């Protein structure tokens, strides 16, 4: 039998139901691996392979084991949920009672939430066992997970490279087999891009499909939770538990009944029209990424899908539009961190004003401050119309372009990112370079459409194979269709089965 950590969510769920192993054994196994990674991360000198990934920010073995034992009891009684006893990690942007929640920020060091995020509760109710909290860019602001106050996350495929962001801890932990699955959040690509960089599978559902209650807010009109795992089949299992209306807690949550996303995984995709936006495959797309994406598309064509050229003319504009809207909302969402009710409070303040200014200056990292400043500016008197309002109007045009595209195709496909994972520190002094790398994920985010990343092969441009993801974008509420396409691709390919060296 293969190692527990090589099993997928589906395989673990089956093994647990069959009593091949207990939830406690499984939990202990993953807690130990996580702890080892934390230890390795603590002393990061020496050769790459002695590095830890830096994925984990918090463990609570007691709580994890207690959850596992409860799961075993339910399994014994035959009352277990669909995912009973299967472990997962939560991006540290979701508030949890059993673990501290930091959102990757010094501002929230040691913060304990008096309640669980809706998504955390839903997955626990499905029987899942929480291994720990996973590193991410501070307040989910970043594309490389280099903006965490608790150190960067490293890419298991090349420890000198970034895992992508902002859900970098989730992606790296899954690739390194530290957890079989994890939650992530996607505001401008934060599930899809790290999934692509780490060679795993991740999906961001339609905006409003998963509750935002208990997600530390970055950009309210864009933030969306989603699952990350190695296979589309696993993502479907988690997503089925995560979606559903949260009428009592989230006013933007859609009143759409929960759905079994596993149902249609095996549907035929013969005749399915897959639109390829010409703006996604132009210059600016690295050759090795282009090659991998083309190969994956060729596979889909072999499976009977029909590739049709489409256009999303405003793709390039989605960068300024997103980087106006998201910081504007963030500048307001992060005002609650003022050192009064919770979070970091500066030691040496003289009056209220200095309490505010010092606490926030000390608590927030540089990228967060930069976005707060930008957001404050685009909302400030005299600039609102030219920036925020204009951006929200173009946002509608971008969303409309997608609706026009969906008249001639069922699903849209293309690269997730213009290049493979870059070196740690490569863009350290050039934030705009990170912004530019979001170009292919931002349009679907602005439109609130479901999007996912599926392993599509490996780019060879960097001298060693580095994962490349294929992005699939569906129309509103068409998550099942994306998962279906992804699953069929994974039936025909084995990219998702590859394992980083040394794991």
């Amino acid at each position: 039998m293969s190692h527990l950590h090589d099993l997928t969510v589906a395989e673990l769920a089956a093994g647990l139901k069959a009593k091949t192993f207990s939830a406690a054994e499984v939990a202990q196994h993953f807690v130990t691996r996580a702890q080892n990674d934390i230890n390795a991360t603590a002393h990061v000198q020496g050769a790459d392979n002695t590095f830890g990934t830096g994925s984990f920010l918090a463990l609570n073995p007691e709580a994890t084991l207690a959850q596992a034992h409860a799961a075993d009891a339910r399994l014994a009684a035959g009352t277990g949920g669909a995912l009973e006893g299967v472990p997962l990690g939560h991006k540290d942007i979701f508030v949890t009672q059993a673990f501290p929640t930091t959102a990757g920020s010094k501002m929230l060091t040691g913060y304990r939430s008096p309640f669980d995020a809706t998504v955390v509760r839903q997955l626990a109710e499905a029987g899942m066992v929480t291994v720990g909290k996973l590193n991410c860019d501070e307040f989910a602001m970043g594309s490389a997970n280099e903006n965490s106050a608790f150190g960067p996350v490293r890419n298991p495929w090349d420890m000198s490279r970034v895992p992508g962001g902002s859900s970098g801890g989730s992606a790296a932990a899954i690739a390194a087999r530290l957890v079989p699955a994890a939650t992530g959040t996607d505001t401008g690509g934060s599930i899809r891009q790290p999934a692509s960089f780490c060679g795993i599978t991740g999906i961001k559902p339609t905006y409003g499909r998963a509750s935002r209650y208990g997600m530390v807010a970055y950009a309210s009109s864009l933030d969306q939770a989603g699952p990350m795992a190695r296979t589309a089949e696993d993502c479907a299992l988690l997503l089925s538990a995560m979606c559903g209306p949260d009428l009592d807690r989230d006013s933007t949550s859609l009143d759409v009944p929960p759905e079994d996303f596993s149902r249609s995984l095996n549907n035929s995709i013969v005749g399915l029209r897959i639109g390829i936006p010409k703006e996604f495959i132009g210059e600016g797309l690295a050759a090795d990424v282009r090659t991998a994406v083309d190969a994956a598309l060729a596979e889909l064509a072999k499976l009977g899908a029909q590739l049709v050229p489409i256009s999303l003319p405003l793709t390039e504009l989605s960068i300024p539009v997103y980087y106006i809207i998201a910081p504007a909302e963030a500048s307001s969402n992060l005002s609650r961190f003022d050192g009064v009710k919770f979070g970091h409070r500066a030691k040496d303040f003289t009056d209220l004003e200095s309490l505010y200014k010092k606490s926030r200056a000390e608590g927030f990292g540089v990228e967060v401050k930069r976005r707060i400043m930008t957001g404050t500016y685009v909302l400030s008197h005299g600039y609102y119309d030219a920036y925020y309002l204009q951006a929200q109007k173009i946002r509608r045009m971008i969303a409309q372009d997608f609706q026009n595209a969906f008249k001639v195709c069922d699903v849209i496909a293309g690269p997730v990112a213009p290049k493979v994972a870059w070196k740690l520190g490569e863009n350290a002094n050039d934030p705009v370079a990170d912004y530019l790398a979001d170009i292919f994920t931002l349009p679907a985010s602005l439109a609130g459409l479901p999007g996912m990343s599926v392993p599509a092969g490996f780019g060879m441009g960097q001298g060693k194979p580095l994962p490349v993801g294929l992005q699939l974008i569906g129309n509103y509420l068409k998550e099942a269709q994306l998962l279906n396409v992804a699953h069929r691709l994974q039936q025909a390919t084995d990219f998702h089965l590859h394992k980083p060296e040394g794991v």
Partner: protein
Amino acid sequence: MSSKLVQGYEVVIGFETHTQLSTQSKIFSRASVAFGAEPNTQACAVDMALPGTLPVMNQAAVERAIQFGLAVNAHVAERSIFARKNYFYPDLPKGYQISQFEIPVVQGGEVSFYLVEGKETVRKTVRLVRAHLEEDAGKSIHEDAALGGGGQSGIDLNRAGTPLLEIVTEPDMRSSDEAVAYAKELHKIVTWIGICDGNMQEGSFRCDANVSVRKPGAPLGTRREIKNLNSFKFMQQAIDFEVRWQIEELEDGRAIQQATVLFDPDTGETRAMRTKEDSADYRYFPDPDLPPLVIDRDWVARVKGSMTELPRVMAQRFVTYYALPEYDATTLTQSKGMAAYFEATAKACNQPKLASNWIMGEVSRLLNAGDMGIENAPVSAAQLAALIGRIHDGTISNNAAKEVFEALWTASGDLVAETGALSLVDTIIEAKGLKQMNDTGALEAIIDEVLAAHPKNVEEFKAGNAKALNGLVGPIMKVSKGKANPAQVNALLMKKLG
């Protein structure tokens, strides 16, 4: 509006009133709004803006906004937007207040009231700009010196998230009298329709007055905003002081600086608040956590159908249906209780004007004397009606009725309880022997007796001196111990002397 000049200056006043809506739970959370709980025990995770929390709108707050809109003939917006007003303050947990900015739920409308100017009462109308829904802030406690070892303020967020309707007027008021009259009328409306408990001490009804002065015909002067006026008395004092102060400044050649000021009841003066830095730029934008508030017309219609008759409508009905003067109608509709008492009395005795006179007269006098509300009046509407009935059918004179009324007012509870209104009144009339003498025979006897005793008056009268009659009526009433019916006495005298 007519304008009275103060030292040659015209006073211009506009109001912003924060009314706390009488809901059970907060506007965006399920915490209680009850007043006076232990600090922060009624501030839930949402009210404290804990990370991950989101607002969910309270239907009852919207319903009250609709009621208000209908009460002041305003437009209830089909679609209104919640926006974030961004600024930092310790009692503002999220660092922004959820309010309405560009598109408020209530648009336009007006408030009319009567104002006594010299001898006549004039009708004033103040136009409303808007009324919008928003959340209240928490409270800062500065008084407790021991707090946290001294030099600290304490923040209590129990009030944070209490639903508010902010009602904004045009600068239509021209004197502190008008301003206070407007505030009283507004207070009456919101309490009458039951959307606000009106408790000013507890801050349920807080007024900000924007005051400026100008030479007649000149453009509007720079205004100063007097914050948190929570009593009508202070309102008048504060505005009067502020007006005098502004005029002095201008007369001394100093320009008025726009400012927010507070009224100090102890000194009777207003003083500028320490201005919040950057308060100028609130960076309003639509709250992405709250989709547009859509109010369909059926809902408005349902609310309209379920609303109680408004004071001004009721007053109009009193004028047309009971033929009361405007003044009576308005006075009787100052409170629901008063109006109900009047209607019950008027219906029972069929003498609306008499009922009105008695309620505005004796009843109000004794209520004020006993400092009680009409709800606790010892004399029921039925009893007052019975009494009025007895005046009308000539059983007793108006003066005698006042005696009976006093007796009723002080009558012991059980006596009142076990006797019907009419028989109770009659019992008292009997007991006090106040019944008018309507027996012609007996009266004629008395008259003849008096005529015989006053031949001089009789002659003078016959000689054409009408006044001489009084010399006869007086003694007759005296002999009859006041029970003679004056009208009847006159009639008989004429007969005998004519």
